[in-house]
């Protein structure tokens, strides 16, 4: 399968006071275009650090992070930001919607940033995304007027509206009850299947991980297996 995301010997070392903390110790990961991969592991195993590096929010100490043909490890902060704008969509555990904006406003903001002020998302894609996420009637609501599950669906819509190469989901069901978790996971699966969307999801939850086609296990900053 054509790899849309690839890391080579990825190392991340933090300096905490006078101590070096090795968050990632040579991670090699390859994700194919249109693949749904979950990354599981205990707290502190380096999954979040890896997700942040994959999304260009952090620069690794060494190694390569190739996203859709571009090595983000070699980029400046501004270049990583630009690559993130064009190719990455984030979904967070705490939804991270703008509370002062409606669902529509949150989507428009993402479109505005992606298009650098120009409207480049076609109406058909927009309608399709909203239909898949069952959000057609929720767009005029502000986040606090929506349930947790609905907020997370808006966050997913925001991540996917610009059709990024990869969606990086950080514990997307961590703040949801089991019913809403199921709905959100089902939506992610649907987006992966129907739109061929590449998704990398980190989770603690084995049931959540099970919806992905492949699960990678991490421990102590390394990949220790996959199924």
């Amino acid at each position, binding site marked *: 399968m054509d790899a849309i995301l690839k890391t080579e010997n990825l190392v991340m070392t933090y300096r905490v006071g006078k101590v070096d903390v090795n968050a990632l110790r040579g991670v090699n990961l390859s994700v194919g275009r249109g693949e749904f991969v979950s990354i599981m592991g205990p707290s502190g195993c380096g999954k979040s650090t890896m997700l942040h590096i994959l999304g260009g*929010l952090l620069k690794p100490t060494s190694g390569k992070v190739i996203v859709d043909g571009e090595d983000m490890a070699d980029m400046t902060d501004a270049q990583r930001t630009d690559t993130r704008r064009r190719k990455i969509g984030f979904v967070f555990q705490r939804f991270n919607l703008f*509370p*002062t904006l409606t669902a529509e406003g949150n989507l428009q*903001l993402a479109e505005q940033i*992606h298009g650098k002020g120009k409207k480049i998302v076609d109406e058909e894609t927009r309608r399709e995304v909203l239909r898949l996420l069952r959000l057609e009637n929720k767009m005029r609501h502000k986040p606090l007027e929506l349930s947790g599950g609905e907020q997370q669906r808006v966050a997913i819509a925001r991540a996917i509206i610009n059709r990024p190469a990869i969606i990086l989901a950080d514990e997307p069901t961590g703040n949801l009850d089991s019913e809403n978790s199921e709905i959100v996971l089902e939506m992610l699966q649907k987006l992966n299947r129907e739109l061929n969307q590449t998704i990398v999801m980190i989770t603690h939850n084995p049931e959540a991980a099970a919806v992905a086609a492949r699960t990678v296990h991490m421990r102590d900053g390394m990949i220790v297996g996959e199924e």
Partner: protein
Amino acid sequence: MDNLVTSNIRQRPTRTLLSVAGVALGVVLIVLNTGLVEGMLNDRIRRERGVGAEIRFGRSGAMLSPSSSNPVDVRYGDQLMKIEGVKLVSPVGYYIQSGNSGLGMEIVEGVEFDSYSTITGAKIVEGRAPQTDQEVMIDEFKALHNKLSVGSDIQVFGETKKVAGIYSPQVGSRIKMPLSALQSALSADGKCFEILVKVTDPDKQDDVRKRILDKLPGNEVLLTRDIGVGVGREIPGIKGFVRAVLVLSVIVSALVILLAMYTTITERTREIGILKSLGASKGFIIGVIEKEALTISLIGVLVGLVISMIAAWVLERATTLQLEFTWSWILRAGLIGLGAGALGALYPAIRAANKDAVQALSYE
């Protein structure tokens, strides 16, 4: 249209109101102060130009201020009358005191009413000219605005005096008393501040001025038509005052916006992280914050202008202060308000743009 800038302004009403008030205060300071300076200067210039004397003879370097003396010997009047082309002279003394309303300053003139009236055309329209040291006359404007009439009490030299008469038209200062009374109160017998000179042929006033300078060198001989320059110069530090008001306004507006935006940025750290996760560049983040500050500043400018107009209306009715607003100062006040807002927001904006995205996203 639901956008981040307007929604943030709406969602944080206290912050918005405080910021608007800060910018408005700066605008009010500029517009009211420059309006007062322009209004008072122009009013004074109009009244000074209306005295009818083409030439004003005074002591070189003498300035009209609360601490100024009356340095000219009235006997210069006799020498002036001997110069070819001089038709009439009238000595005038000045005293500056606090305004009766408690605002601003007020000039009291000491005049010899007969010669002054002949030169200026000022006529008593009610009552009579003052005849004792305890009497003064005022112009119609002051009578109307201070609700004074013949027989009213008025404070001059810290003493209560009586209004003996009301004169018209408005020329020179609004309060006049006999020159001898002013000299006596100031212990300046035989002195005045300047001598008004009426020439026989106004077309030849330049020649007369030259002859006066030749005959009485070392004195200041001004043409009344140049009085705009003269009056401006006579008020010491006026330019410095206006500049100080401008600087103060910029500081007040910029500081209020800086503090408001700084606090807002701290509150919105997580939102900055979200913007970064969406791929927003530093320029985009700075732009959002600057747009917000400029929108708030624009509201502040408009509120400031409205408050200034209302304050001017109240001041003009409650006091004899005159305010004149010019488009150039209104425009400058607006630009200063917007500029100060943009400047004040710049540091918080740059700080926000440089925040670490991961730390910002985990901010509680």
